[in-house]
């Protein structure tokens, strides 16, 4: 596996607050990464640091083996689609599409034109007159058609409805399959994107709390529910991520990949249910919060 980005002990402080706190990870070449976390977890700050739009307090970043700051050779290979991209006042949709090839060497005009049709964007309309969803569509189109070696999408779909989001996911997958490249997608809509991702990086309070192949996370945990006695018996010898109790009933999320564990739970008369990536991450990030408060 080749890496295109290496981040070591990266910290970015705003006053006393660390928005990114001693983060170390790598980004793999030609894989789709999910940068997941709650609002305010540090996703945007992290992407601003990786694209040299902000500077670290401590630690180092290498993009294609070099510091990205004021490095035209590196920066010309990046595309960063922000949640709130600003454009010149009089810019129309058409102007964005016409100027994009100046910045992106791999820009595909035909792909951009297809996407404009599919997202039903008015070319002659001024950007400041567009709806929130249409403005997001402009970002999505630029991000996809740029075919940049590394593309960052930071919550790219504010105001996009479910149909338009699905269109984005479908076009991303299809074009990625034809033109493999590195994609980093930040989102809190984990359930929607989980199947698209090859790698998952979860950030919470500026810290990386999970960094793994999506496929090895899936199936890692399951939930059991039943009478409290039976659940406690089963859970006592296993790693419990989360449990809740209601009257005489208990539900517990157990970290385990073994089929035997599932059989044992079934044999004990417990109801077994799957745990989605989203549920697992919610439980991971809310438990790290408890540890955080504990240590503070």
């Amino acid at each position, binding site marked *: 596996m080749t890496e295109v980005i290496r981040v070591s002990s990266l910290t970015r402080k705003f006053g006393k607050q660390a928005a990114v706190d001693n983060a170390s990870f790598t980004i793999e070449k030609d894989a789709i990464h999910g940068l997941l976390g709650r609002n305010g977890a540090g996703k945007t700050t992290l992407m601003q640091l990786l694209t040299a739009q902000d500077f670290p307090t401590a630690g180092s970043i290498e993009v294609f083996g070099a510091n990205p700051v004021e490095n035209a050779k590196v920066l010309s290979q990046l595309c960063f689609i922000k949640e709130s991209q600003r454009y010149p006042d009089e810019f129309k949709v058409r102007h964005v599409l016409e100027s994009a090839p100046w910045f992106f060497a791999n820009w595909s005009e035909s792909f951009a034109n297809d996407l404009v049709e599919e997202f039903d964007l008015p070319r002659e309309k001024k950007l400041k007159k567009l709806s929130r969803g249409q403005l997001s569509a402009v970002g999505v189109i630029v991000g996809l058609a740029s075919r940049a070696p590394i593309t960052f999408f930071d919550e790219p779909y504010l105001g996009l409805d479910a149909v338009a989001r699905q269109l984005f996911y479908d076009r991303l*997958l299809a074009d990625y*399959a034809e033109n493999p490249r590195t994609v980093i997608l930040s989102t809190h809509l984990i359930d929607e994107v989980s*199947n698209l991702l090859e790698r998952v990086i979860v950030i919470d309070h500026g810290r990386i709390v999970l960094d793994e192949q999506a*496929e090895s996370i*899936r199936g890692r945990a399951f939930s059991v529910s039943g009478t409290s006695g039976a659940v406690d018996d089963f859970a006592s010898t296993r790693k419990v991520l989360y449990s809740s109790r209601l009257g005489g009933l208990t539900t517990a999320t157990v970290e385990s990949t073994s089929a035997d564990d599932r059989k044992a739970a079934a*044999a004990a008369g417990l109801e077994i249910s*799957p745990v*989605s990536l989203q549920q697992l991450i919610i439980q991971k990030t809310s438990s790290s919060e408890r540890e955080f408060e504990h240590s503070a």
Partner: protein
Amino acid sequence: MDESRPIFIQIAEQIEDSIIDGELAEEAQVPSTNEYAAFYRINPATAGKGVNLLVDEGVLYKKRGIGMFVAKGARSALLEKRRKKFLAEFIRPLLSEAARLDISAEQLVDQIRKESSK
């Protein structure tokens, strides 16, 4: 897709099902990894992992530059494999639920006969 299990295993099982049901005949070309990825809306690397699992098991084979094909004898090998799993995955859970409900083995056999003659 079932969230509780790795997707590449589910992709492999879907392909196995198509072979068992005869939708994918032996020596037929299977859809490409990218086609599976687009159809199931999953990462192409994940789809590729599922396909490769079946290549490793000898169910599929690769023709360089052309694509993946169903191997000769794949269907009977898969039937054999699934029949072995049938006992553990269907018969045993059936028997344990029957025991829990006080249904005897004879009553169970009767019920199965009735159902299958319908």
